[in-house]
């Protein structure tokens, strides 16, 4: 199958993308002297691309859910589930790298030293909406886990995913309403070279995203084929592998 043929090259490309991201973020990127924590600032090259890749993963989920509701083809539901799980992993990375960076940039060494960290974090609309997005899709995964595979689960989780997707633009746009740094908007103050570097890192995370979603999709397809084989052993003996 075509997906199977892509799996190995994408796995290799994904590993290379992570290594290259480490080189770009830790070696190529200049030290930003105007930060209280110039070393931890390098986490931007992982934190921002992880968040954008997570938005893309959830977009795959919404697209899969929409297509499932239109066509009732189970493969779209499997794409939706794969995107949600990979998106949840990437959002976890984005959230926690952000917490670590802001803790040291603003609270240990920076302008807010001595302020209560947890309280200030909850005042950041970007953090709150992204944590909500994370919980929404963890809820999606929990929902799927607690329902038997089949059309009812696919239909319910598709509707849930489409409603949950509203949290993506909310999270993306929330930096306009919070003190959260927004490096993607014009006039963010980011030097042009650094913007380009951030863009290159984001492209690398899309390679990682493609590798993870492909492999997750393969696991879903194999599980679906095994389930079909259990239900119809005769049909499976003629080869029903996805």
């Amino acid at each position, binding site marked *: 199958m075509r997906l199977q043929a892509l799996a190995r090259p994408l796995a290799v490309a994904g590993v290379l993308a992570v290594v290259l991201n480490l080189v770009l973020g830790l070696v190529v990127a200049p030290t930003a002297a105007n930060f209280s924590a110039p070393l931890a600032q390098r986490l931007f090259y992982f934190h921002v691309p992880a968040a954008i890749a997570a938005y893309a993963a959830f977009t795959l989920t919404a697209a899969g859910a929409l297509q499932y509701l239109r066509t009732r083809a189970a493969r779209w539901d499997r794409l939706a589930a794969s995107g949600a799980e990979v998106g949840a992993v990437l959002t976890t990375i984005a959230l926690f790298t952000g917490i670590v960076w802001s803790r*040291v940039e603003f609270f240990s060494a920076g302008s807010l030293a001595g302020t209560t960290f947890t309280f200030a974090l909850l005042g950041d609309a970007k953090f709150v909406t992204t944590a909500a997005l994370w919980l929404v899709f963890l809820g999606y995964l929990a929902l799927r886990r607690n329902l038997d595979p089949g059309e009812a689960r696919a239909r319910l989780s598709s509707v849930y995913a489409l409603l949950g997707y509203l949290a993506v633009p909310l999270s993306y746009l929330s930096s306009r309403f919070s003190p959260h740094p927004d490096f993607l908007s014009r006039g963010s103050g980011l030097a042009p070279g650094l913007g380009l570097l951030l863009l290159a890192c984001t492209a690398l995370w899309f390679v990682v995203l493609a590798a993870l979603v492909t*492999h997750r999709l393969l696991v879903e397809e194999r599980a679906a084929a095994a389930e079909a084989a259990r239900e119809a052993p005769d049909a499976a003996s003629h080869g029903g592998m996805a």
Partner: protein
Amino acid sequence: MSTDEAALALGLAIVLGGLGGYALWLWRAGRTTH
């Protein structure tokens, strides 16, 4: 190790641990459902 260095190390551990752990889980899941 300064706080700045420790934060960078912790952040990288989250990135590499998260991606590596999930990739390893996917690899194992791929083998068991094969």
